[in-house]
């Protein structure tokens, strides 16, 4: 019975692999949940043979930048509901390392997604997924079904809603009045700098990106504290920064996340920055 069961399951897996290869090639893979979307977004970069020119690492702030705009010049492994440290640790072990990493720093102290790290680093499953694509999250039947359903409908744009914004700001105000404990802040900064320095030592170009925040959030005690600490540890003289232009009028859904229209604007700004740095780097090389 055991042998027969195993043989039967292997046969099914083979048929499934062929069916996926035949019917589901053109479906853009998305995850049914936020966490699985994160994993599938990383898988897209992870299993690519060529190295990314620039890689965006961050939280949901970066993950909300529209793929259509951002994917032209930069790969994104930004993940919702987890800190940028997860992406940095993954960038450190990417099979084909990127040339430059753009790091969203707004919530650098947010926790690490250990499940995602384990998924990509724990052997032998990580290696098996490299050679057997049906073992990947993106190829699972339910995820493929949801991807196919999503592909039929364009995702609705996230528009400005003053009530939602007020609710979000009130919630964030209750969270951000208290500053982070010095111990947590120092530990996070030390870990953050350690990973960034390690990437830099490998020859990867690091750019720190400050995403726009609603003024009420940006001026809350917690964000003033964390940005002051960041500027002290990563001075502009030693590290490259991208700051949002103060004059721009950003629209927010909840005080943290940009509406789709503003996200497109910020993505454009980021792409322009990438272009400028690339051109100046080329000039430096030519000179």
């Amino acid at each position, binding site marked *: 019975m055991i042998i*027969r*069961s195993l043989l039967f399951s292997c046969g099914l897996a083979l048929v499934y692999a062929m069916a996926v290869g035949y019917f589901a090639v053109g479906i853009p893979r998305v995850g049914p*949940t936020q966490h699985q979307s994160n*994993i599938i977004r990383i898988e897209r970069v992870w299993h690519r043979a060529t190295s990314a020119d620039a890689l965006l690492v961050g939280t949901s702030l970066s993950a909300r930048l529209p793929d259509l705009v951002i994917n032209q010049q930069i790969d994104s492994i930004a993940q919702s509901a987890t800190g940028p440290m997860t992406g940095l640790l993954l960038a450190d072990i990417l099979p084909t390392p990127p040339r430059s990493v753009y790091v969203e720093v707004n919530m650098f102290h947010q926790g690490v997604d250990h*499940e995602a790290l384990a998924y990509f680093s724990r052997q032998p*499953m990580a290696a098996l997924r490299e050679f057997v694509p*049906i073992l990947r999250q993106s190829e*699972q039947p339910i995820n493929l079904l949801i991807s196919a359903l999503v592909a039929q409908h364009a995702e609705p744009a996230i528009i400005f809603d003053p009530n939602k914004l007020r609710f979000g700001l009130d*919630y964030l105000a209750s969270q951000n009045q208290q500053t982070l404990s010095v111990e947590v802040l120092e530990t996070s900064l030390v870990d953050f700098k350690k990973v960034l320095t390690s990437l830099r030592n490998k020859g990867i170009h690091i750019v720190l990106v400050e995403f726009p925040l609603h003024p009420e959030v940006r001026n809350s005690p917690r964000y003033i504290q964390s940005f002051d600490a960041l500027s002290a540890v990563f001075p502009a003289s030693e590290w490259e920064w991208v700051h949002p232009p103060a004059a721009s009028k950003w629209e927010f859904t909840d005080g943290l996340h940009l509406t789709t229209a503003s996200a497109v604007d910020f993505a454009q700004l980021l792409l322009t920055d990438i272009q400028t740095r690339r051109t100046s780097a080329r000039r430096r090389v030519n000179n």
Partner: protein
Amino acid sequence: MLFNSFDFLCFLIVTLGLYYLPFWRFYQVHVLVAASFFFYAFECPALLGLLVACIGMNAWLSFKISKLGVQDRAGIFRFAVCGILFNVGLLATFKYGPLAVQLLPQGKSGLTVWLQHLPLPIGISFYTFENISLIIDVFRHRRRGEMSFTPTAAPTHLLHSALFVAFFPHLVSGPILKADAFFPQIGLPKLWRNIAWSDAFKAIVLGFFLKTVVADNLKEVTTLMNYPQFIGFSTLTLIVLLAGYSVQIFADFAGYSLIAIGLASLFGYKLPDNFNYPYLSSSLGEFWRRWHISLSGWLRDYLYFPLGGNRRGRLRTYFNLFLVMAIGGLWHGAAWSFVIWGLYHGLGLAFERWAEERWPDLSLRLPRWACVATVFIFVSFGWLLFRLPDFGHVIAYLRCLATNYSLGFVGQKKLLILVFVFSLPVFLLHAFKSMAAGGRIHCVASTVPAWLKYGLLVFAILVSYGLPGAFIYFQF
């Protein structure tokens, strides 16, 4: 070491190989004890010391009880009380110390700081209850003047006690064993040719399916139950999430228990069933005879019956139910929400008993499906206290359920599909059972050939596993 890790697979193969080596047959118990200690120490070696000390102390106390004369009732009683106090004290210190600190007046004394920084040893709730079972079972046998079920030689007694408590399949999350049922299995030579491969395979495959396909995938959806993510959801979505969590917690724990049962049978040991289709229960009393059977059995035998059970009048019965369920709740974790969860079930059981006395034929008049649905709803609301540790968040969830009244799923269709698809196997499992009579949870009565069913399950594990997460009951 997680059962669903590669490390564990290597550990299992090596242990099985050593265990069944022909010339080591007389050292099988030694091999298992050593392997179990290694398993426990793998993540945090420092905590092994506590486990070993605990085993040593309980083995010594139970050995002393077994060696005392039947006439020395006071001596037997004294050692038994010492044993129980030792175990309860240990659990209180390591598990409930931080909760006790909250109740103490503010101020940083050395004791409060020490209690706050104590680590929570993995599986302490499980192995402490097993140690209490060892002490009480030996005490009861001795008091009745029966032959002891434990070995007569001290070193063998220690070794068998160590295996009883530390046997790795059940060490961190049960099933909670009873000493007089497990000890007779120890010491008998186990042979490779006697392994019940088919039963072990079925239990392990179904266990992994429940854990990796059902529980791990539902976990991805039920994270939406975190505050404040659920605030904007409609009533119907919140109900679906709650039902999804009910299925998830069952699949997670029943999956673990089945894997433990399957692994133990590879080594020739039989562990008791821990779940018996709990969501088919038509009363709360029945639910507790089907859910986490080893814990409810432990609470019944070592707490409810000694307190007098239902033989000391109506009020005393209600009090006993409340007390036992509150302790059962507190056993799950050092937080008030677990106590409230226990009292919630205690209240439900007391009400059920009162209703049975008031309207004896009520259960006969009501359709069974209505009773099953009522119990499922009652139990599911109780799980909110498990899912949301902050009591304020539970209230917020209930408020949203009442105020976000809508039957719509706008923007949440994916969520509905996921909960439906991944809960379906558990509902089908229960449905098959309700249609077929008898059988254990992993022996689904059906005419479909076993190789086809289990082949499908293996295929599902391969291509539909969720992102691996720790077992929910590890935290207890």
